[in-house]
C-alpha cells in the first residue's frame, strides 16, 4: 500500500530524513518510535504533503501512485489522513459545518454522490456515538478553546468520518491522560480493518498497550535503525533509547 524508498528530506538545508525505507501493507499498524528530534513528525508531515520540506531524494508510492506529485488535498482524497500533533484552532468556522464539508469534499473528489443535510447529520451522530464524544463540541468553533483531549478526539472524529486508507497519528498520545488515551486508541481499533493501515508516531510505548502494532520501527538521526515486533516497544520502554543510539552510532562508524 505504502512504499517509501530511500526518502531524504531537509528543511533549511538541514537533513532531517536521511534515507527512509518503509513498506506498509493493507491492514497493518506500524509504530514509529524514536527520541525527540529523530524525524518522526517530519515523516508524518511529509506523507500528508506539508510544503515546508525539501524532498532531496527517494520516492513515496501510495496505492501505486506517486505521492510526491500529489497536492495536499489530493492525498486526502486518495485516503491519507494525518491526525495532527497540534490541531489548528480556527475561530469562526463551526465544527459541525466543517465536519460536514470535509465529508462531501472527499466524496466529491472520489466521484461519490454528496450527502444531503439529513444524511450528513445521521453520519455525524453515528460517528460521535462510536467515539463517545460530547455533541456539544459540534456547536463550537473548530478546535477553538478545546482541551488537549477534546482536540485529539476531534481528530479521531474526522478520521472516522473520512474513513481513510492510511491513518497517520502524529504523537496523538502526547499530553493525554489515560482516559483520553483510551478513547483515541478505541477509535483507531474500531477503524482497524484488513484494508486500512495505520502509522502511529509516538515517543512513548504507553499508547501501544492499547493500539497493538504489527511492526515497530525506531527512527534515529533520520533513519530507521531498528525494526521489530511489539516486543521492541516494550524493550524501549524498559531500557530507553540509549542502547539503540549506541548501536546505530557504532554501525555508522
Amino acid at each position: 500500500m505504502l512504499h517509501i524508498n530511500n526518502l531524504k528530506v531537509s528543511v533549511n538545508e538541514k537533513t532531517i530524513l536521511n534515507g527512509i525505507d518503509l513498506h506498509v501493507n493493507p491492514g497493518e499498524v506500524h509504530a514509529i518510535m524514536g527520541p525527540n528530534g529523530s524525524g518522526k513528525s517530519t515523516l508524518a508531515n511529509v506523507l500528508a504533503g506539508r510544503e515546508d520540506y525539501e524532498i532531496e531524494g527517494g520516492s513515496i508510492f501510495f496505492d501505486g501512485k506517486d505521492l510526491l506529485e500529489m497536492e495536499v488535498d489530493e492525498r486526502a482524497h486518495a485516503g491519507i489522513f494525518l491526525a495532527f500533533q497540534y490541531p489548528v484552532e480556527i475561530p469562526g468556522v463551526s465544527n459541525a459545518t466543517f465536519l460536514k464539508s470535509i465529508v462531501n469534499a472527499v466524496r466529491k473528489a472520489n466521484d461519490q454522490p454528496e450527502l444531503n443535510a439529513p444524511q450528513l447529520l445521521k453520519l455525524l451522530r453515528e460517528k460521535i456515538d462510536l467515539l463517545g464524544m460530547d455533541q456539544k463540541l459540534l456547536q463550537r468553533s473548530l478546535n477553538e478553546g478545546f482541551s488537549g483531549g477534546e482536540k485529539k478526539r476531534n481528530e479521531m472524529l474526522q478520521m472516522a468520518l473520512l474513513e481513510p486508507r492510511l491513518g497517520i497519528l502524529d504523537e496523538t498520545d502526547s499530553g493525554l491522560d489515560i482516559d483520553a488515551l483510551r478513547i483515541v486508541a478505541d477509535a483507531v481499533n474500531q477503524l482497524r480493518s484488513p484494508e486500512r493501515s495505520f502509522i502511529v508516531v509516538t515517543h512513548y510505548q504507553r499508547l501501544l498497550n492499547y493500539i497493538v502494532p504489527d511492526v515497530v520501527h525506531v527512527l534515529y538521526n533520520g533513519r530507521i535503525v531498528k525494526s521489530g515486533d511489539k516486543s521492541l516497544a516494550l524493550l524501549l520502554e524498559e531500557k530507553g533509547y540509549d542502547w539503540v543510539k549506541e548501536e546505530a552510532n557504532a554501525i555508522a562508524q
Partner: protein
Amino acid sequence: MSSIVVEAKHTEIKEHFGLLFQAFEQSLNGQSAQPLHLIRQSALKRFSEELDFPTRRDEAWKYTSVNRLLQGRYELGNAADISAAAIQPFVPPFAEKHLLVFVNGIYQEQLSQIGSLENGVVVASLKNALQHPDNQEKISPYLQEMAHSANIFKVLNAAFLEQGSFVYVPKHTRLDRPVVVLHISTNATAAAFINHSNFLLMDIGSEATVVEGFFSLYDGDRADFTNINTVAALQRNARLTHCRLQYENEQAFIVQNNSAQQGGDSVLTSIQVDLGASLVRNNLSAHLLQSNTETHLYGIYFGKGTQHIDNHTFIDHAPAHCQSNELYKGILADSARGVFNGQVMVRKDAQKTNAFQQNSTLLASEKAIMDAKPQLEIFADDVRCSHGATIGQLDEQAVFYLRTRGLGEEQARSLLQHAFLFEVLEKMEDDVIRNWIEGFINQKFEA
C-alpha cells in the same frame, strides 16, 4: 506651486456646488423662506468662503486623497421611475414594517411604507418630517452644529439638507421592528451629488434599530458622490442599534460623517459594512456625555480591485464608568487599500473607563495596502484600555490543516476568510439582520 493648483481646483468645485445650490434652492419652492433655510444658506457661505477640502497634508487625511472626488461635476440626483420588483433583491426580510426608499437620493413615497406607530413616534423621510415645526425644533441644535462644523463635508451636508430620514422615539418607547432605509442608485446620464441626512433621536429609555442599505442598480462608469451625515442622539438609558451596509457601484465616492451623543446608561451599537464603492471615508464619533454608557462599534470592510476604504473612529470618554468596545476587520485583495484610525480619548475625569479596540486586516494580495493607526489618548489614571492592530496573511498552518482534510486550496482560503469576518458578525444579536449582511458578504466573495 502644486498647492496653488490644488486650491484653484477647489475653487472650481466649490463654485460648482454653488451652482448646484442655486438649482437646489429653486427646487425648494417657497420653503426657502423658512428659518431652516437660513441655516442652509449660512452653511453654504461657510463652505464656500471659510473652509477647504482636506488634502493629504492634513493628518486626518494622510492616507486618503479626495482629489478624484473633487474632479467630478455632479448634478443633483433625479429620481428615476423604478419598480418595487427592481429593488426587491435589496429589501431585507425584516423591512416588513418600516421601509424608507431613496432612489438617486430622492425619497420615493410609493416604494416606501411606514407601519403603524405608537403615540409620539416619528418615522419619516426628513423632508416630510420637517413640515412640522416640532421636528424642525428637534433637529435645530444638531443642524446648527453641522453648519458650524470645521468638517467641510458636514457643512456641505447642512447646506443641502433636505433628503434623509428622521426617527424620533419618545420616552420609554420601543420600536418593535427595525426601520430600514434603502438607497438605490440607478442609471443616469450624469454623476449625481447625493446628500443624505439622518436624524435618529432617542428619548429617555427608548429603543430602536435602524438599518441602512446602499446599493447600485447600474454597472456603468458613472461616479456618484454620496455625502451622508448621521446624527444619533441618545438620551439617558436609550438603546440604539445602527447598522449600515454599503455595496455600491465600484466607481462611487462616499463620505459619511456619523456622530453620536450618548446620555447616561445609554447603549449604542454601530455596525458598518463597506463592500462597494471606489472611495469610502467614514468618520464615526461617539461623544459620551454622562456615565455608565456602552458604545459598540463594529466594522467590516472588503476591498477588491482599486477600492479604497477609510474608517476613522473617535470615542470621547469624558465621564467616568463608560465602556467602549470596537472591532473592525477587513479583507483587502488585488490593489485595494484600507485605512483604520481609531482614536479613543479618555479625559481626566473619565475614571474606570473600560475601552477596548481591535483592528485586524487580511491582505489577500501582495499589492493590497493597509494603514492602521490606533490612537489612545489617556488622561485619567484608573482605566482599562487596550488596543491592537494586526495586518497579515492567512495562517498557512490553518490552510494546510484544512487541505489535509480534503478541501481544495481555494476552498480552504475562502473558508478562513469567511471565518475571519464572521468574528464581527457574531457580535450581532439579531440573526435575521446578520444573515442579511452575510448574504451580501458572500456575494462579495464570489464577485
